[in-house]
């Protein structure tokens, strides 16, 4: 009964996001989509020619391999980072608001609340909406890479394994995001803080140290343990094994296990912290 009403509220809330989005539909078709496509294509082109330059004319075949290696990194990393950043952004968009007439501060959650959509449901529907957008973006990267630049993934690529790795990696990142979302309360009344420094630090470090652009073996030994603290490391290792070397599921067990554990612990901890701290801030600290 209760879940049924949550589901209906979710559907209405999701429709609202879509509706707001379709308002900008002309912007999407005429400005956003072409620039996004161009952006992806130009980004891929620079990597394409860069790999050709680095490998040199004699290294036929190696340039293609190098390019595929990079493509997997840059296509997937926005999706992972989105999992880290979204929970905090959802909180921010719900609780931020301008002071209006009557000394009345109007945050977005009040809009949903007055329409009978609980703020948790509103946050989840917003999250699902951006997840879809980022999935489309990742798919565009891969599609352009394959069809425009002729990337060939290994002859016996393990797509199912790769998808599983990505999904688990995303959940692990989401867990980290839930933990880091709690830092939002430090900035609740600071309308000028547009980037959360904690999620920014995590995603930037994870992008570089997690192996988006290079294998972790090239890092100095003392840095490697740090790299393995990020879920990104397991995702990229597993993904490249599965797609470029066609590793079967058994060969991915180390990454799968690590990501499952990471996701379980982080999501549980994150959800618990988020609930308790929000409750504390709203009721006890009298912040809202």
């Amino acid at each position, binding site marked *: 009964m209760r879940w049924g009403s949550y589901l209906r509220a979710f559907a209405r809330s999701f429709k609202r996001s879509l509706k*707001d989005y379709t308002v900008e539909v002309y912007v999407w078709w005429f400005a956003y989509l072409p620039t996004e496509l161009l952006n992806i294509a130009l980004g891929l082109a620079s990597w394409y020619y860069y790999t050709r330059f680095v490998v040199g004319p004699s290294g036929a075949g190696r340039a293609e391999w190098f390019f595929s290696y990079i493509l997997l990194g840059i296509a997937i990393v926005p999706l992972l980072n989105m999992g880290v950043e979204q929970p905090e952004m959802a909180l921010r968009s719900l609780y931020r608001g301008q002071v*209006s007439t*009557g000394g*009345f501060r109007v945050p977005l959650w009040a809009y949903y*609340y*007055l329409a009978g959509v609980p703020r948790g449901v509103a946050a989840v529907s917003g999250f699902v909406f951006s997840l879809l957008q980022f999935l489309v973006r990742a798919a565009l990267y891969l599609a352009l890479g394959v069809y425009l630049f002729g990337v060939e993934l290994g002859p016996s690529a393990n797509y199912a394994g790769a998808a599983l790795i990505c999904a688990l990696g995303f959940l692990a990142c989401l867990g980290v995001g839930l933990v880091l979302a709690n830092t939002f*309360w430090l900035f609740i009344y600071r309308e000028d803080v547009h980037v959360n420094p904690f999620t920014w630090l995590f995603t930037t470090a994870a992008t570089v140290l997690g192996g988006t652009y290079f294998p972790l073996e090239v890092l100095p030994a003392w840095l490697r343990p740090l790299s393995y603290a990020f879920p990104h490391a397991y995702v990229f290792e597993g993904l490249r094994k599965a797609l470029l070397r066609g590793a079967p599921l058994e060969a991915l067990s180390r990454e799968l296990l690590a990501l499952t554990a990471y996701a379980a612990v982080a999501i549980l901890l994150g959800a618990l912290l988020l609930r308790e701290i929000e409750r504390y801030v709203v*009721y006890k600290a009298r912040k809202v």
Partner: protein
Amino acid sequence: MGRAEVAVAEKLVKEYESYEITGFVPMTGFGLYALFTVLGEKLGKYERRVVRALDGVSFTVREGEVVGVLGPNGSGKTTLLKILAGLTMPTRGRAEVAGLDVVKDHERLPRVITYIPGLAAISLFARPEMTVEWNLRRFADLAGLPREAVREALELVELVEDAHRRVYELSTGKLARLAIAFGLVKRSPLYLMDEPFTGVSPEVKVKLLELVKWLASEQGSSVLYATHILSEAEQVCSRVIVLHQGRVIADDTPRNLAKELELMESVDVEVRLAEEAEKLARDLAERADRALKVEVEGDVLKLTVAVRSSRDFVQYAVERVHAGGSKLLYVRVREPTLEDVYLALLSKHKAAEEKVVVAPPGVCYIFTGGVGGG
């Protein structure tokens, strides 16, 4: 009366926490500036304050009642309405709307209230580049309400002609009407209106005030109506609650309050004299509680007095004037207005104690963002 209770408040207390900045707060920069800002604010001088916006407020609102919430700026009217609407939580005490506890049944509360904060709602509810109707529909769809509700709400606030105009084109008063329309798409047992008609021109306001009365009389809904404009309250409210520094200082009909405060009625009398003006004026003034004005223009005496009971005074005046052979030209009785009641109440409570409690420092310094705002 035997009518059902729609809203109950019992010893409600609402405290806000804020920080008074007395020291240096560094400018913000770029990059990791948020971190530095937090550090900077910790190094700056702060005094933690707890503002008690509501202090032991209790009352009930019954079915079909329109209750005015009056009080000076900062007396807690908005806070009270926000608590009943579920937009903020009470610190202590209990509040119920249609049997739902505002804290425990928070999620179900929107089904039984309609919150109309006037212009304050616009920035939240409307996308300015879209049309009036699009914005109302978006809200109605989100709330799962039928499309007809949008049309009806537009008709009620007389915005049908502007339905296809963009919101940024609207004048202040029409924006205020749009803000009201967002509330009216939903019917519910309790309407919470917070200075709803600010900026609305008189001819439309008259209709909207009628609408408020209609909601109560025909639909059986109750209305809590917070306002400074006492003439509005006088027109629609069957009862008023007056807040002062977060406390209820009066809760009754305006008439009873006037009686309680021993507010006097004023009586104007004009007489064409056939006797000595001074003598008649003295006799009449002696019968009144206070003479406010005595004027003689030719053979016409104009007298204004304040009396506790206009009935007795007028009866006496008629007899006395006739007895002297003079002719009564004009009598007018003015009952005390809500404004008189309100001003009298406030002057009585002026010497209430300080409401700001300064908490001991060093307790809750983790959240340093909170200065002002809500």
